[in-house]
């Protein structure tokens, strides 16, 4: 009760009222210990629910995962004794793991470029203001709303070697049919095609939003100077989209590296050498092979891969920002 009073009397120059960065000079903070303590309490009351979940479901697993990776823990509860770095040394000499990392990186390479390029082309075309905005947005973005299960089922059907639409089309134009998901190395490309179709809409929306933020004045000025449509595209639109492209690239590469859902489902759980991504190998080691310790070690190798890519991109983006 007294706390409340103290808080109220402190309203004017209350140090807790001063916003983080939003406002100008702060009023001189009165040295009211009580008010300050209460402020801390209030802050923690706001923070508590999120921080509790954060610690329980992110921080703790992150730490516990390190410990698990140093044991021979199994899913069935047996094992659990400390074995040092054995899991890591096994993983690093595990050909299947390296193949999975290779597949994941290859998938990232073959999806990122089309996912950025198609998205850009779609957004540029839609942004010209051609009639039918509603329909274009629906066509390109709708697949993104579908669950991985749904798109996997649709594409497994399209890629069916005997009766699928993909081969029907190939034979209609006189090409040899392909066993899309049953041929080594082609399988991952097929998964990439489905993925591009599925997720390009997200990048498309990001580009569209960015395009609509470019001030029209710039175009008007350019037009006055006699710049034609192509000139405007290359000297205004594309340069302005530079930063957005950076963000989309980062998001896209990180998303592609996390491939699992559609790869697992399109192969119906039967992973092939050439299509198994690293996350699926974590899953198989942990939930098929029951080796939680080993799976944790691979998880950390995967995490390091993500960190490396993420940090590299951040450095590149920052440098480019400084340059310009």
């Amino acid at each position, binding site marked *: 009760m007294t706390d409340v009073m103290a808080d109220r009397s402190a309203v004017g120059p209350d140090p807790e009222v001063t916003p983080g960065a939003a406002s100008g000079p702060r009023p001189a903070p009165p040295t009211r210990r009580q008010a300050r303590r209460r*402020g801390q309490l209030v802050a923690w*009351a706001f923070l508590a629910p999120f921080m509790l979940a954060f610690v329980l479901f992110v921080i703790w697993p992150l730490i516990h*995962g390190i410990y698990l990776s140093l044991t021979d823990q199994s899913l069935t509860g047996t094992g659990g004794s400390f074995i040092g770095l054995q899991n890591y040394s096994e993983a690093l000499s595990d050909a299947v793991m390296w193949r999975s990392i290779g597949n994941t990186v290859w998938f990232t390479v073959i999806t990122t470029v089309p996912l950025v390029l198609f998205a850009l082309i779609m957004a540029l075309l839609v942004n010209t203001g051609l009639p039918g905005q509603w329909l274009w947005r629906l066509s390109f973005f709708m697949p993104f709303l579908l669950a991985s299960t749904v798109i996997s089922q649709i594409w497994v059907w399209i890629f069916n070697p005997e009766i699928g639409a993909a081969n029907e089309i190939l034979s209609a134009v006189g090409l040899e049919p392909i066993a899309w998901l049953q041929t080594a190395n082609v399988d991952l490309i097929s998964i990439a095609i489905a993925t591009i179709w599925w997720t390009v809409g997200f990048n498309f929306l990001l580009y569209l939003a960015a395009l609509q933020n470019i001030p029209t004045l710039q175009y008007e000025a350019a037009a006055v100077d006699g710049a034609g449509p192509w000139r405007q595209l290359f000297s205004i639109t594309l340069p302005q989209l530079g930063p957005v492209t950076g963000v989309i690239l980062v998001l896209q590469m990180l998303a592609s590296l996390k491939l699992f859902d559609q790869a697992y489902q399109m192969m119906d759980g039967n992973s092939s050498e050439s299509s198994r991504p690293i996350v699926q190998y974590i899953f198989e080691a942990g939930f098929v092979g029951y080796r939680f310790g080993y799976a944790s070690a691979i998880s950390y190798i995967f995490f390091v891969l993500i960190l490396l890519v993420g940090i590299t991109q951040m450095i590149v983006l920052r440098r480019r920002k400084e340059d310009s």
Partner: protein
Amino acid sequence: MSATTTMNEIDAPGADVTQVRRTNRMPGEKSFGLLRILAFAALVSMAVLWLLPVFWAVVTSFKTETDAASGGLDLIGPSGFTTQAFEAILSQGNVYVWALNSLWTSAVITAITVAISALAAYAFSRLQFKGSRWLFLMVIASIIVPSQALIIPLYYQMLTFNMVDTYWGLILPQVVMAPIVFILKKFFDAVPVELEDAARVDGAGRLRVFFSVVLPLSRPILGAVSIFVFIQAWNNFLWPFLIINDTTLMTLPVGLQTVLSAYGVQYSQVMAQAVLAALPLVIVFLFYQRQIVKGVATTGFGGQ
């Protein structure tokens, strides 16, 4: 043509490019028209390409199994148009259970995520406490942690909590979304402090101010973020797939996946399933396209 063009250009910000060009390209009147036709053709062909897979799924779902299994690109099979596949799927009952599970767990995940993120974001934005910056940095840094790398220890944790095969085990690990905290903090930072100060002078406590001043102002961003979280939760596969084995507790994506393996070769039924599972979000999208597009775009960009 020119009238509709102008109308559209007014509607779409940034699109007046074309209009300005019109007045300016001297020899270009013709090539401008050509460019526009080419753009339109490109747009139509891409849209067709993108709609085709879904269209094909719908077409197949209205065929008999024999027609579907015989392939071919015809729109209606030799045996004619039929809703057999849908009837077969819907008579199994599980689809309803899964759809309901997906609906309410996604709703709960969205509610919890947005509530706890908003509270935390407000603390990070407005309240001063020891270690505020440090803590915020830690939360932001956690964005780089891929949830897929945590499945093993998380599953182990759920085993010890006895939450494997429970709704809580499904829901709780999905409510921590650091990007949402970041987005909301940025939004709160931009809300003028004066608005809150006025209420504070009137004697309202922090919580009151938060609920009666800040939240009402934040409705658009909360809506945007909620849409995003809901779509993510609705479509999430890996975690629900791991944590739920009981058929009656499954979400739609996981349930459909198990059935797919069970009756693999019944193509029109599989497509009917896919169409049914896709329907709810697609219908919602048709009605709330503007809001969803905005929600996804703002959230995707980290609230800019």
